[in-house]
C-alpha cells in the first residue's frame, strides 16, 4: 500500500468532473500507481466536506501523505505534465 492517498473533489456529473475522473484514471495508469487509495467526494452531495477541507473549487485533487500533509491540484487534470509532476510521489513504485 502507498503511504499516500488521493481525494478527488467533484460536483456531480458536471462535464468537467467527468473529465477529471477520466484524466485521473489515465494518469494513474500511466504512472503505474493504481494501488494508491483514491476517494471521490461530491460536494453537491456533501457540502460539509468542502467546509471541512477548505476546498471550494472543483474539480480538485488532494494528495495526502501519511502524516496528513495535503497537496492540492485544481482543474480537470487535462494538463498531463502538471498532473504527472503532482503525482510524482506515488508514481512508478510497482514497475
Amino acid at each position, binding site marked *: 500500500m502507498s503511504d499516500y492517498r488521493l481525494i478527488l473533489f467533484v460536483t456531480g456529473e458536471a462535464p468537467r468532473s467527468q473529465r477529471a475522473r477520466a484524466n485521473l484514471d489515465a494518469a494513474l495508469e500511466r504512472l503505474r500507481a493504481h494501488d494508491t487509495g483514491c476517494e471521490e467526494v461530491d*460536494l*453537491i452531495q456533501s*457540502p460539509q466536506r468542502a467546509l471541512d477541507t*477548505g476546498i*471550494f*473549487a472543483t474539480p480538485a485533487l488532494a494528495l495526502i501523505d501519511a502524516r496528513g500533509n495535503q*497537496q*492540492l491540484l485544481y482543474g480537470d487534470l487535462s494538463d498531463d505534465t502538471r498532473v504527472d509532476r503532482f503525482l510524482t510521489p506515488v508514481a512508478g513504485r510497482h514497475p
Partner: protein
Amino acid sequence: MSVEMGTLQKRATGIVDLDTVTHGGLPARGVTLVLGDAGAGKTVLGLQILANAVAAGEGAVYVSFEESRDGVALDAASFDWGADLMASEHLAVIDARPPPGAAVAGGFDIEGLLTMVEAQAQALGAHWVVLDGIDRLLQLQPDAHQALFEVDRLRRWCEDAGLSLLFTGKTGGQQAVGNYFEGIEYLLDTVLILSARMANNRLNRRFRIGKYRGTAHVTKELAMVMDQRGIHLGHDTTALENPAPVSSRRLSTGIPRLDDVLGGGIYAGSTVLISGLPGTSKTTLVAQFAATCAERGERVLYISFDELADRIVRNVATTGIDLGAHRDSGRLTIIARQAWRAQVEEHYIHIIGLLNEMAPDFLVIDPISALLKASSEEDAMETNERLLQLARARGITCVLTSLSETGAPEGEATLSQASTLADAWISLAYHIQSGERNRTLSVVKARGSAPSNQVREILLSEKGLELADVYQFGTEVLMGTARLQKEMEARRAAEAEAAEREQRRQELARQIEQAESRIQEANSELQRLQNQLALEDQENARADRETTARQDDIQTQRTPRASERGGHSASGSGHDGSEQ
C-alpha cells in the same frame, strides 16, 4: 428590506450614505462587484453590510479567500459593530483560502462553493453573501475566459437563489488587475470602485459607483472615510433638497455698534466670515457672537482647529466673555480638532456627523482656513463649499474665521476664495501708527445690508469688546493714543470755540440792550420835543390872538366913525382878511 425601484429590486445595505448614493441600496437579487486597491476598504464595506443585516436579525455569509477567520475578526474589531458581528451565530465565516502551493492542471469551477454557500444561506436565513478576494482563486484559472465564465455563473446563481452578493476584486489604479478580470465590468450590472491613494503623505480613500444599471445613482467620485462606526461617504443631499426658508431675522452680535454697522445684526441662517492676521481678535469676536447666541438660548457648536477648548474658554474670559457657563449649561459645545490629523473630507464628514447629532442653531469654524489648507486630493474649497451649503440649507447661522496670510501681496484678496462662501465679511486688521498697534474692524461686504464703509477701532476690556469711532484727520484715520490725543485737542478747541461764542453772544446782547436804551432815550426826547412844540404852538396862537385884538383896538380908536358911518365896503374887506 428590499425597495421597489422600477423593475430593479434593491436591498438596503444599512450604510446610510451608501443607501443614499445608490438611491435605496444594492440589487436584491444580483451581484455587486466591489473593485478596489489594497486597503481601499472593500473588506470593511462587506463586513459592515453583514453587521447591519445581523443586527436586523438576518443571517449573513462571509467567505474569505484571503484571510483566516481570526484575520477577519481582527478587521472587524476596529469597529463598534465588529464584536457583535463576529460573536453572532447568524454569521457564517468561511475560510476559503486556496491551500498554499496549490497547483492547477486544467479548468475548474466554483460550483462546489456555490452549493455550499447556498446551503449556509438557507440554514441561516441570510440574504447577504460576501465573497471577499475571490480573485485569489479565480486567477488560478489557466484561461481568462474561464474566470469570466465563473463570474457569470455567480451572477446567474444569486439571481436564482434570490441573494444579494457582494464580491470583491483588486485593482491596480482604476483597472482590474491582470487579464483574469478583464471585461468583468461589462459583464456585471453593478460595480463599485474604491481607491486608496496617497495625497500629501496621507491615505486618501475614494468611492465611486462605476456602474449601476437600471437605476438612478450618484456618479461623482466621493470621499470615503472610515471611523469606528464604519464607512462614511462625503455626500448628503437630503438637506440640500429641502432647504430651510430664508430668514430676514437679524441676530445681534452682542456688540451694539457692530450691529449698527451691519444694518441691525447678522441675518439668521447666513454665513459670516471674519478674516484677519494672527492676534487681531478673531476668536474674541467670534466668542462674543457665540456667547450672545447661547444667551438667547440657541445651541452653539464651536469647532476649533487652532486651540484646545479649555484654552479658548480661558483666553476669552479675560475679555469678560463667559463661554464656560454656556458650556456648562449645554448650549455651547466646543470641539477641538487638529487640522493636520485628517483630510478635509474626514473633517467634513465628522462635522456633518456633529451637525446631525447636535442640530445646532449656530456653527463656528475657527478657523476655516485650516480646513482650506488641510490635505486633500480634491479641491478643499469644494468640500468647504459643500459643508456650508449644507449648513445653510439647514438654516444654521455660520461664523467662520480665516487667518490672513502674512506677507501676501494682495492682503485681503488672498481670502477671496473663502469670502465667496460668506454673506457678510468682517475684516480685522492692525493699524500701526505712532509706534502703536491698534486693532481695527471694517465690514467688507454684507449681502442684504448697506454696511458702513468706515473702519472702526476695536477696544478690548474686561467688560468685553466694543467699537470706537475712529478719528478722521484729513484723509487719515487716527486710532489709539493718536485718536485720544486728537480727541482731546478737538475737545479743547471745541470748548474754546464755545466760550468765544458765548462771549460774542453776550457782547451782542449788551449792544442790543444799549441800542434799546438809546431808542428809549430818543423816544422820550421825541415826546419832549413834541410836547414842547405843542406848547409853543398854543403859546404862539394865543400871542397872535392878543396881537390881533390889540391892532383892532388901535384901528377902532383911530377910525371909529369912518367905520360906523359908511365906509362899509373898504373896511369890510379889511375885516375879512384879518379874521380869516
